[in-house]
Structures are given as C-alpha cells and as structure tokens.
C-alpha cells in the first residue's frame, strides 16, 4: 500500500465519522457506557487485588521452638525448615524479642506484661514466609512434623477463609468484566453494521470498479479504531477525575491502616492505557465483523 493510499484511507475514515454523525455518536456512546462500567470494575478489582496481595504477604508462620532445644538443635531445625520447598525466608526471633513485640502490640495495657521480663514464659520463634502465600498452609503442616517444634501458628482457619474469599472475589470480577466486554462488542458491531448498511452502495461501487477487499476494509477498520478511542476518552477522563478526588479524600480523612488505595500514578495511567486499548479493540472488532458480510462475492 502506498503512503498516498494510506492517507486516503485515514482521510476517508475521518470524513465518514462526520458524515454519519449520529451513528458515530451512537457507536462511541456504546463504547463509552461499556468502558465506564468496565473501568469502574477495573478500579475496584485492582484495589481488591492490591489489598489481597498485601494481606497475603503479611501471612507468616510462627514456629514455636521447644524450650528444651539447645542451639545446635535449633540450627538443625532451621536447616530443615529451609529445606522445605517454597520457603522464602526464615527469621529467628528470641523469646525476649517476642515479649517486647507482645508488650508493644498491647499498647497501654502492655506494661502489665513487663512483670514477665524476669521470668519469660514465651518460647523462641522462627518466623517463616512462603514464596507463594497460597503454600502457607502446606508448609505449616510439614513444619509441625519436625522435631523440637512446640507449636505452629499461622492464623489457622482465618487464613484459609481469607484465601477462599479473595479467590471468589477475583473470579467474580473477571467474569463480570468479560461479560461486559462481550455485550459491548455486540452493541458496537450492531451500530457499525447500520452505518455500513447505509453505505453498501459505496461498497458495491468500489467492488464494481475493482477495489480489493483489503482496500475496502481499511477505512472501516480505521473508523472502528477512531470510534473505539473516541468512546474511551470520556470514561478515561471521568474515572481519572473521580479517582483522583476519592484518593485525596481517602488519604487525608479516612486512611485505614490495613487498607490503602493504589496511588493515582502510575495506576490511573495504566488503566487509561488499558481502556484505550480495549476501546480500540472492540471498535475494530465490531467494524471488521460487520463489513465482512458485505465483502462476500
């Protein structure tokens, strides 16, 4: 294809947007509505995911060591734990450190535990982290069987429930997003089909004078691309503005310690890019699908 022809295709596709004014508006609106919904879902999903990852990464196994174990036996235990597959990190925490941590975590009432500083009833602890949070339970079970392990603590019950809930949330979100995208594609494909139907005479004449199918398809391909991107502009702007303000308000006034929102940059830039690509994708798909049936000889 010559540069001149390509310029013609671009020119034609843009002219056609103007010529089919209302249809352009309808198609772009279909993209807009869909992407707005998809965008909101993405924002929620990515934040849940972010939260989930943070929670998952905080999950650790506390291995309480038997009081009778000497330092050689402790070292042996450490090596055995490290040998378990998917163990990322093993950190030693002496019983004195454990007591300090306990006192600190209790806040003001913690001072009453200071009495125990003379005779510390706690045991030394290995803090184990799994490479993948999902492996935590499996690793904990294995550690339990090792010698000189007094007790293994990883938030039994709670962790399993948390992981299950997060998995469900992710899958539900994914299904909803896919469903929305699918609906959008059909909506756009139908609107573009109408614009193409109005132009079947043009296509007919193009074919009569010897235009190849590729040549005929190009302007429609580009038109779909513009429609998709045009439709993506409003959702991107709207989501960016709303998210920016929500983020500011949350950080300043609410800001819960265990839940933080993804920072505006780079998250919103990535999301904008993603929406633009999805918009372009459904626009192109819609127009290429609808022009196809007019190109059969």
């Amino acid at each position, binding site marked *: *294809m*010559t540069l*001149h022809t390509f310029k013609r295709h671009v020119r034609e596709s843009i002219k056609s947007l103007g*010529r089919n004014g209302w249809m352009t508006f309808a198609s772009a609106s279909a993209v807009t509505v869909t992407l707005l919904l998809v965008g909101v879902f993405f924002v929620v999903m990515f934040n849940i995911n972010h939260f989930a990852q943070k929670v998952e990464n905080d999950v650790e196994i506390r291995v309480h060591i038997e009081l009778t174990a000497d330092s050689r036996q402790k070292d042996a235990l450490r090596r055995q734990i490290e040998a378990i597959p998917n163990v990322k990190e093993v950190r030693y925490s002496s019983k004195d450190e454990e007591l300090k941590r306990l006192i600190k975590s209790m806040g003001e009432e913690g001072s009453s535990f200071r009495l125990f500083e003379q005779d510390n009833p706690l045991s030394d602890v290995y803090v184990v982290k799994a490479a993948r949070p999902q492996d935590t339970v499996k690793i904990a079970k294995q550690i339990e069987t090792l010698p000189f392990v007094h007790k293994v603590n990883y938030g039994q019950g709670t962790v399993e429930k948390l992981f299950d809930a997060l998995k469900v949330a992710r899958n539900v979100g994914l299904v909803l997003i896919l469903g929305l995208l699918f609906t959008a594609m059909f909506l756009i494909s139908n609107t573009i089909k109408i614009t193409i139907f109005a132009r079947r*005479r043009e296509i007919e004449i193009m*074919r*009569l*004078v*010897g235009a190849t199918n590729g040549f005929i398809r190009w302007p429609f391909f580009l038109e779909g691309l513009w429609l998709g991107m045009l439709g993506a502009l409003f959702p991107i702007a709207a989501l960016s503005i709303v998210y920016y303000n929500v983020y500011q308000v949350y950080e300043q006034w609410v800001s819960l310690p265990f839940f933080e929102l993804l920072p505006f940059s780079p998250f919103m830039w990535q999301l904008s890019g993603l929406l633009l690509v999805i918009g372009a994708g459904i626009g192109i798909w819609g127009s290429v699908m609808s022009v196809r049936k007019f190109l059969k000889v």
Partner: protein
Amino acid sequence: MIEMQDVYKTYPNGVVALNGINVRIKQGEFVYVVGPSGAGKSTFIKMMYREEKPTSGTIMVNGVNLAKLKDSKVPLLRRHIGVVFQDFKLLPKLNVYENVAFALEVIEESPKVIRKKVMEVLDLVGLKHKIRSYPNELSGGEQQRVSIARSIVNSPKIVIADEPTGNLDPETSWGIVELFEKINDRGTTIVMATHNKEIVNATRRRVIAIENGKIVRDEAKGEYGYDASYV
C-alpha cells in the same frame, strides 16, 4: 474477447436463468442483448463481469476462465471491464470529478495520473464544464455520462451496459448511444442489454436475443424483433 461455452445457471431458489449458452464476442464488436424481461438477459450480462458464477460451463474473458476465477482475483478482472447501469450508481456525496476519480483511487493510481485521465474522459463525454457539480444537480443523461466516464477511465477492453438508457427520454438516449459508438470506435468492445427498439433498429449492430435462458437469435446486423419497446 468474450466466449461462453455450454453455460448453465440455476439460482439456489431453483430458477433456471441460463439454459445452455454458447456465444463468441470478438474484440471491438458492438453487441445488443435483447429479450423479454426475466428471460436471462441480466444473468447473461452479470456472468461477464463475474457478478454471478455459472453453475456449469466455461466463460472466457480476455483469456481468463471466469468459472474458475478465484474470488480474490475478481477485483483484477473488474479493472479491465467497465460496467454501466440503468440507475447510474454514482456516489451522491462526491462531485463529478470525484466520482470518476474514485475508480482510479481504488486501484491506487497516482494523483497526477488520476487528474490527467479523469480530465480526458470528462472531455470525451462532454462534461468538462461540470466537474464540480454533484449528481443531484445533473440531468439523468448527464449522470449517465458521468457513470460512463467512470467505466472507461481505466481504459478497459470491454464495457458492459445493463439497460443504460432505461431511465432516459428518447433524445437523451440517443446521446448516450452515440457516446457508446464513439467509445466503440476506439476499439473497445461494447455489450449492451436494452429494451430500446428504435435505437437497435436504427443502428443495425449485432443483436443477440435471449428467451428462456437460451440464445434464440444472433444476427450480424439485426433488428430488435419484438413489437413493443417494453416486453
């Protein structure tokens, strides 16, 4: 050159449109195709530019068998065949110049060549002074001239016309036929389906009559042969 051998065409709904056609049209001939409505004229014409495929038989156009031509090669065939219709098939939003240039744009001709060729053919059809007009500002005869200009702008060897004077008054029709004769004089084959008795009888060209999907008459200097203009 166009040559058909044992061409049959049955449409998917069971209608038999062509029932064994054998014909040879030499380069540079001027041929009228006549016959009652629904006799197969249109199908016969459509076979020549591969708008329809034959059910069986061979159709050679410029040395290519259209019965076996791949869909992807049809555009290349069309670039060597001009087609003119009763309803002109002009694009209403393009002016005269753009409508004619369209045929060259789609085959990716350079802008310089396009300008030269379009001005040449518009001169030939006598519409050089109306290049900026839009189809709805032109008379029927003028619109048909634009459509003829478009069909010959890439210098095809064959021009196929399906009732080009069907929508025009007798006087204007004569102008159009004279234009086709002018094009024919330059060596282009003309195949024209028509119902216009006066023109066929006056010009005395080859006449092929089709009835019930068969050629019933093929005369070198024939007459229209039916009583009324519209059968």
